[in-house]
């Protein structure tokens, strides 16, 4: 009597592959290119130096990013007549090596984004599932807070926090996270509301599963896909937010390099020393675009239902 599981294919609808060859190659490129760029950035961030292995002098960055050398100040990139191969991307107004700062900046900018993503997605998911599954007053309360959080201009809040706590790495992470969870909470609540109506949740109640078990075993695994998608799409947004804060002088305090404060450094010299702001700008643009492309790709891959997001 047992039927083989592979028989189930007959009931599945045929997968329609409506894409032409060219479209398929483009699709593959929109995956490979962003993933390569993001991986390179992450490798840069990790191997900027090997201080975490006790080897501060070994690493990808040719120089110490905060070491000043006034004789070498404002050197253009190597292809310029006045440039030299000792400083491939030139130096800033204090003679610091731009390439080294860019590589160390990747470490700071990316770790800010990563930490913020972890904190906000955790808080947002917990509150979203709680609100969505428990409903009633819990939901009403949580969702009002969410709405309020979404209504605040995040830069303003971050500035207030930075002013009151003093600018530091921790301040930046806290400041961005403070409102950032709300987007997750709203998405996850919506998904939870949908899942709560599913028969398998009713079935879990029928067998006597506790609300906690239902949320952990039945709701959470089913919100992971949309969660991952939002997390990737957030990379770009967070890099920009961090950069904006640093640019406004309330982000990562100098002399530590972040892409944002590097742009700020070169702000007044754009007409004479364009390279100081341009390279971190390019780095930001690359990461943001890669994050978005990768997120879009994941979204198509994991969940066609979310395309409207």
């Amino acid at each position, binding site marked *: 009597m047992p*039927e083989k599981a592979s028989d189930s294919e007959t*009931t599945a609808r045929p997968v329609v592959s409506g894409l032409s060859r060219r479209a398929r190659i483009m699709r593959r490129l929109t995956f490979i290119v962003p993933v390569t760029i993001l991986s390179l950035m992450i490798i840069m961030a990790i191997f900027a130096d090997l201080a975490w292995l006790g080897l501060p002098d070994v690493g990808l960055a040719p120089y110490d990013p905060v070491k000043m050398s006034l004789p070498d100040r404002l050197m253009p990139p190597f292809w310029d007549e006045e440039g030299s191969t000792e400083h491939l991307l030139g130096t800033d107004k204090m003679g610091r090596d731009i390439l080294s700062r860019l590589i160390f900046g990747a470490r700071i900018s990316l770790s800010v984004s990563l930490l913020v993503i972890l904190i906000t997605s955790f808080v947002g998911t917990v509150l979203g599932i709680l609100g969505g599954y428990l409903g009633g007053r819990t939901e009403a309360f949580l969702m009002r807070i969410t709405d309020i959080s979404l209504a605040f201009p995040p830069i303003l809040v971050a500035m207030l926090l930075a002013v009151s706590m003093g600018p530091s790495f921790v301040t930046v992470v806290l400041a961005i996270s403070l409102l950032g969870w709300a987007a997750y909470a709203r998405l996850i609540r919506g998904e939870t509301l949908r899942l709560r109506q599913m028969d398998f949740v009713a079935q879990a109640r*029928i*067998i006597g599963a*506790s609300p906690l078990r239902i949320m952990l075993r039945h709701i959470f695994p089913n919100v992971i896909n949309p969660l991952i998608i939002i997390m990737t799409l957030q990379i770009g947004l967070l890099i920009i937010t961090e950069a904006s804060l640093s640019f406004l002088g309330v982000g990562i305090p100098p002399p530590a390099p972040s892409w944002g404060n590097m742009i700020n450094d070169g702000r007044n010299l754009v007409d004479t020393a364009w390279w100081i702001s341009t390279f971190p700008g390019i780095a930001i643009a690359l990461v943001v675009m890669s994050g978005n492309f990768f997120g879009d790709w994941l979204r198509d891959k994991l969940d066609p239902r979310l395309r409207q997001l």
Partner: protein
Amino acid sequence: MSDVILEGRDLKKYYPVTKGLLQRTIGWVRAIDGISFTIERGKTLSLVGESGAGKTTAAKAVLLLERLTSGEILFEDRDIYKFSKSQMKAEYRPRVQSVQQNPWSSMNPRMRVRDIIAEPLVVNTKQTKEQIRKRVLELLEQVGLAPNQADYYPHEFSGGQRQRIAVARALALNPSLVVLDEPVSALDVSIRAQIMNLLKDLQNQFNLSYLVIAHNLATVRFMSHSVAIMYLGQIVEYGDAEELFQHPLHPYTRALISASMLTLPEDAEQGVEQIILKGEMPSPLNPPPGCRFHTRCSETQDICSKEVPEMKEYGKQHVRCHHVVYR
């Protein structure tokens, strides 16, 4: 000897209809409005009706998925609404299980079949992993699946196989009563017979009681010992299944049976005609006064629109109608 496992007494469920910013209640949807029934041990009761009749709400109340507005549910002669939380968890929940209509949504897509069937045991018992593993394999065999299928995910199965998995899960805790909510209506015709036979075999093997929710009368006749026909939140005819199908007394039951009958072209030529009801079921927000069926009934009289008919006994049947012609 009557051995009643579950009895519903005068069950009512009203949903408020609210309007405006302040959620003012402007009316009540009477999803079920005073229904009573009994389910005997080892037997099947079917609640039959069209969408909006209230049959699903009644099933949800028995499964504790909906809180009733009023009424009593007696499980083995004890009022379950007087149970403490721990009594409910130990003495009611595990013994009343369910198989749902749609085998595509009734299982968590991210769990393996093994874990789906094991979950009732994990939640409700303190069995060891080895005991649970053995029980899962035993259950798979009982519903006609192979042991090596335990490690697949639900999407790797066809509808019929999924419904077998759902049955296995429902049986895991050795329940006394299983609520079958349209158990075959989402399946292909040639698969339905497999599942219905399986359900009947299991009923005989384990002396299970079934509460079947269905709209297909032929399925109901095959599955049931007794039947309750519902219309607009009320039971209009209730009794022994064979009596009811052979001698339907309520005009709605007759129309429903007629609508579900096969009328071959030559039958039609010989003058066998279907009873075609006029209109559609009114909204449960504003049920008609008097007999709720009088707006569509072909035999309606003056009294029907004025007085609510009471449930009266005729032999083995109970009928809610003013003009029953009995024998």
